[in-house]
């Protein structure tokens, strides 16, 4: 059983890095630089967790989260100094994200998947 992850960031290189760093047999990552493409994909292929960059072209991660299924846990990723964000987010990660933060989260989620399976 694999963890399905969607990552949205308008910085293409960060999408590539996220996929390179965290893809594995247990974790399948789909990345997007375009918010609308991500929204359409999630509607058809709901993932287990969604990472949303806060600052996107023409919109924000908060606005994108509103347009996605509210039952899918979302993590807001931001390079801003702001501490508070509106919206219902599972966690907020500040850039640069630490590997350990993501690995711990994925391990926890995979364990939960095994328990509920």
């Amino acid at each position, binding site marked *: 059983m694999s963890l399905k992850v969607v990552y949205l960031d308008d910085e293409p*290189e*960060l999408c590539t890095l996220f996929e*390179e*760093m965290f893809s594995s047999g247990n974790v399948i990552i789909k990345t997007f630089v375009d918010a609308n493409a991500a929204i359409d994909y999630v509607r058809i292929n709901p993932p287990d967790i969604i990472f949303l960059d806060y600052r996107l072209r023409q919109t924000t991660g908060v606005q994108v989260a509103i347009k996605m299924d509210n039952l899918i846990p979302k993590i807001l990723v*931001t*390079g801003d*100094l702001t501490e508070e964000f509106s919206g219902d987010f599972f966690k907020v990660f500040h*850039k*640069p994200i630490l590997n350990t933060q993501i690995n711990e989260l994925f391990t926890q989620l995979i364990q939960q998947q095994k328990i509920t399976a």
Partner: protein
Amino acid sequence: MSFQKIKIFWLEAFGSAECDSDNLVLTLSGTCQDITELVLIEEKSKLERAKAQHSAKLASLGEMAAGIAHEINNPLSIISGSAQLLEQYANNPEKLFEKKLSIISATERISKIVYGLRKFSRTSYKNKYSIKSVSHIIEECLILTDAKAKRHSVALIFNKVSDSNVECDEIEISQVFINLINNGIDAAMSQDEKWVQIKLFDFEDHIIIRFSDSGKGIDTNVIHKLFQPFFTTKNIGEGTGLGLSIAKGILDEHKASIELISAEKNTCFEVKFKKNEVNAHVS
């Protein structure tokens, strides 16, 4: 031992001689005026202007801090992620090279931003004039204001038709340009069409920079107050109102000018530098 208090006076003296046809001095006349108070007022005014400029710099810096943090954190994330992957790709020269290039490119991005911040670091009141490319100054200002523009989905358009240089204090002129660009972003961000355009061109013996935005324009009732200290059209907490009066003061010192071009459909501020013999074109 006793010390007497020394008081300094400033005197202005004029003298002239009246001579006959043989250039022999007939009379000497002159005036001597105590201008101490005038000089002290001028010195105090210079100091107050410098303090106000410093406050305006801090205000601008505060406004940009959040955007700058974001612009630094993204390349920092690229460096961090790429560095962590180097071990994974130890036996893959192509991937190693790719990650090395990513790190270098991201480092350059951060360097540009930090270099631009030096404009706000100087505290000396002395002006440092040197010959600078106007387009280069504008490009550096755009790097610093780009984060705020992106945040509000405002397009920054630079239309350059001049390679002229000016003799100026680059840091002060940058502050003027950043203020004008930020004002444009503030005006444009609530509109359906969001843009700020900077046009650089030469006209006769002047170098002209026009800052326009897609905002709703300036109320004709307040146009005459625009360059007054502390005047602002923004809501409380959104601006200090120091920007335009400080900008005018800086430009006055540079023997340049700033005015609102009423004939333009959109809000348009025009900054004008006079060309002189030092305005050589960039080779």
